[in-house]
């Protein structure tokens, strides 16, 4: 009897989940009529399911699963083919991102990118603080003088020209 019980107990879970064949179902039901131990095991499964079912159902009632519905609609839409406007709306809808709290790795990635970009743009660029202010100066028509007043941080480029007419602002 015990050996038979152990072989039935393998089927008992499948029977409980209604995944047995007709032949297996008849076998399990026939055994259950004569075996109180297996009846107890089946009752335990039932109690456990009830124990889990109640809080799960309560949680389900509280949740409206918009993201799940979106997925289902999208799955249906795969056969119907989404319009470009629906695709854009789907991509612009950021509400699932907030629900899933994915903004934490997203922010971390952005911070890393910011850091890298800052390094590229600012740190690796040489400073020319020591270089001369005037890189080159040329004039084909006039003499030119360059004068640095380093204390005042003023550089003068002076063209020696002939006098001309009065200036007026344009």
């Amino acid at each position, binding site marked *: 009897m015990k050996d038979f019980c152990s072989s039935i107990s393998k089927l008992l879970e499948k029977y409980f989940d209604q995944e047995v064949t007709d032949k297996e179902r008849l076998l399990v039901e026939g055994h259950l009529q004569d075996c109180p131990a297996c009846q107890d095991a089946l009752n335990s499964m039932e109690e456990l399911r009830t124990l889990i079912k109640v809080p799960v159902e309560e949680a389900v009632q509280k949740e409206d699963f918009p*993201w799940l519905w979106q997925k289902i609609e999208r799955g249906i839409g795969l056969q119907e083919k989404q319009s470009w406007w629906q695709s854009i709306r789907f991509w612009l809808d950021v509400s699932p991102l907030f629900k899933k709290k994915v903004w934490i790795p997203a922010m971390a990635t952005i911070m890393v990118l910011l850091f890298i*970009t800052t390094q590229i743009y600012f740190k690796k660029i040489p400073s020319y603080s020591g270089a001369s202010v005037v890189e080159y100066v040329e004039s084909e*028509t006039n003499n030119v003088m360059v004068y640095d007043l380093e204390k005042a941080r003023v550089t003068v480029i002076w063209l020696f020209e002939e006098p001309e007419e009065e200036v007026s602002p344009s």
Partner: protein
Amino acid sequence: MAIRGAGGGSIAVMKRVVALIAFFSLLFILFTSVALAQVQTQLRVIRASNVGQGVDPSLKELHNELKTLFNFTSYRLLRDENLILSLNQPVSISAREGKIIMQITLVGLHKNVAELRIKVTREGTETLNTQVRLSPGRTVLIGGSKVREGVIIYAFYAHF
């Protein structure tokens, strides 16, 4: 009793997150590079002469430097321009009814230095071609264009 779970949704969300991060990163890099490739440059056109004693009130902070460099007694501000210079985009300023054209081009931009190429053309003839490095607090004066009773001085500053 079998307990089954479904986790397909998180993969879809992660795909969207990755796509959105990539998109915004690209935008950020593009905008940063555009913003960093610009510099605000102030150009003041001053007429210096020995006629009178007046110093334009807006030139008072520059007057100390001017008086140590030149012997002029009068400084008059003719123009005050704020130019937003973009890399390799020339900006032209004309004076004296187009007789003098000053072309300013930002040719290099670094952390604290803007490299400007300045070309002055008078009546079609190039009178000056120079390249200068402007840093914070640095003033570059280009002067010498003579006018009756004085000269024209162009003062350049860069704002970072």
